[in-house]
């Protein structure tokens, strides 16, 4: 299962539409969640709207929070999205096996069995989360909190039974050659998360759309600028239910 978690504090202003980019991600089987971080004032009507739209297009969840609640919110979004994705796959099977559309329609005794399966898969399905950090100038005072939240997320993911990996990107890059910079390649090692953003130089522009497209490429090819090392990730969660519910 693949997710992008975008952390930003405002509107994109350069390049391709981030909403279209998120729709592309979903098409590739990658869910996009968005955390809007604001400590003082609001994120602005436009920014708030864009954040919600990106998540909708990417099949994920969006939340606007202060840095204090960021860690908790990121975990909630990640977990909820995992459950949601599994539930969608399971619902599809429910329809095939039992002719029911959703969990809600099942009598409680059968519901219990289905939820046991969903819980099991939530815990064991392999998971990759790419964190995409908006490093435009206004985000600077929030980066320390972002880094803590990432560590905290890693700690929670490590506790899962299924393998869980994080990768971290920020955008824009210093030069104009890249739309997103890889800070940390796929890892499940907490200690590798130390002082992630020390060398980041903040810039004003916010090319959210192009950055998302870059990360989709990374999921595809395992690199930001080539077509090597294709990562095979079998579709998890499907075909499992039949064994449990009949």
């Amino acid at each position, binding site marked *: 299962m693949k997710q992008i978690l975008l952390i930003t504090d405002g509107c994109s202003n350069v390049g391709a539409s981030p909403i279209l980019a998120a729709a592309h991600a979903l098409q590739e089987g990658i869910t996009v969640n968005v955390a809007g971080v604001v400590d003082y004032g609001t994120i602005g009507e436009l920014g708030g709207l864009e954040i919600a739209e990106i998540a909708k297009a990417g099949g994920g969840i969006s939340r606007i929070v202060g840095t204090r609640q960021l860690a*908790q919110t990121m975990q909630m979004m990640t977990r909820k999205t995992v*459950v949601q994705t599994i*539930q969608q796959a399971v619902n599809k099977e429910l329809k095939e096996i039992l002719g029911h559309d959703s*969990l*809600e329609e099942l*009598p*409680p005794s059968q*519901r*219990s069995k289905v*939820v*046991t399966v*969903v*819980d099991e898969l939530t*815990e064991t399905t392999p998971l990759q989360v790419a964190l995409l950090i908006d490093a435009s100038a206004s985000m600077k005072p929030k980066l320390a909190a972002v*880094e*803590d939240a990432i*560590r*905290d997320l890693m*700690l*929670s993911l*490590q*506790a*899962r*039974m299924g393998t869980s990996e994080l990768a971290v990107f920020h955008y824009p890059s210093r030069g104009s050659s890249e739309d997103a910079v890889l800070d940390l390649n796929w890892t499940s090692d907490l200690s590798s998360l*130390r002082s992630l953003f020390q060398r980041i130089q903040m810039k004003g522009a916010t090319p959210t759309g192009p950055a998302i497209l870059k990360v989709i490429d990374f999921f595809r090819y395992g690199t930001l600028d080539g077509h090597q090392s294709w990562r095979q990730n079998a579709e998890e969660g499907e075909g499992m239910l039949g064994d449990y519910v009949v």
Partner: protein
Amino acid sequence: MTTSSNPAYPAGTIITGKWRKSRFVIRRVLGQGANGIVYLVQKAGYRGLYALKMGYDTLDLQSEINVLTSLQSQRKSQDLLKENVKSPFLLEVDDFKDRNKDIPFYVMRYIEGSALHLFIRKRGSEWIGLTGLRLLEKLRGLHQMGFVFGDLKPENVLVSEYGRVELIDYGGVSTIGRSVKQFTEWYDRGYWNAGSRTGDEAYDLFAFAILMIQLLDEQALKEAAKQQLPQTRNTAELLSLIQRKTSLKPYSSWLRKAVLGEFANSQQALMMWKEQIYAPAIVGKLPGKTPRWLKSAFAFSIVILCFAVCLAFFL
């Protein structure tokens, strides 16, 4: 999915189960949390009171119900051995057909009491030893059935009159060895960089230790928590607190072990807690000196004794 801003149903509303057709009359709201609203209800036609939890999310609530069912069936087989069948915690699971949608709910035993921290605030910290013991017994019970409680905090511990303890909110319960589903900052071992978020007995014991420190000296715990940056936060501050504060002294060796994750299991932790609270150091310090009436009664009996001795001497 509904949100927590949904208004609660007023008193008098009748909740009829879609599947089993039982009817419950709402008396009032007992509480509201992240996963649902809990009402005090009366089963129509009966006198008994129950707590009814309506969930915001069918899947989350069912997950909680699964834990309760599994606990119940294990408990039943244990209790049958001891021939001591208690009234069950989980009574009924059903859906309520509201105007526009079905709302899942379950009915459980109503626990009359107050949250642990409120109970201690009201009755005094000398109750900590006993309520702590009973809470540890609850945790040990869960652990022996293969579960960890996870989200242990004072709000999830209800204490009834005379210190009987019940855990509520099983939404955070997970199987031992699985990731902890729900936790709260202070009580979370991960928050203190003191270990993983994989559910094991030590996870609950850590949370229990923080909970006890909070009850004994909340101010000190607050300071320890905010003293450090998240990435450097560690248990050193907690350990020094346990060493330093006189309020924590009676429990210090137990707390230290729990914070360091040194208990082999909760059974061992329970035994040591018992030893600790019944050690002379604490019992001797139990408040209330010898009551005046006892002293005068004692003096009086001495007088009588002397009198009797004298009498015996003269006779």
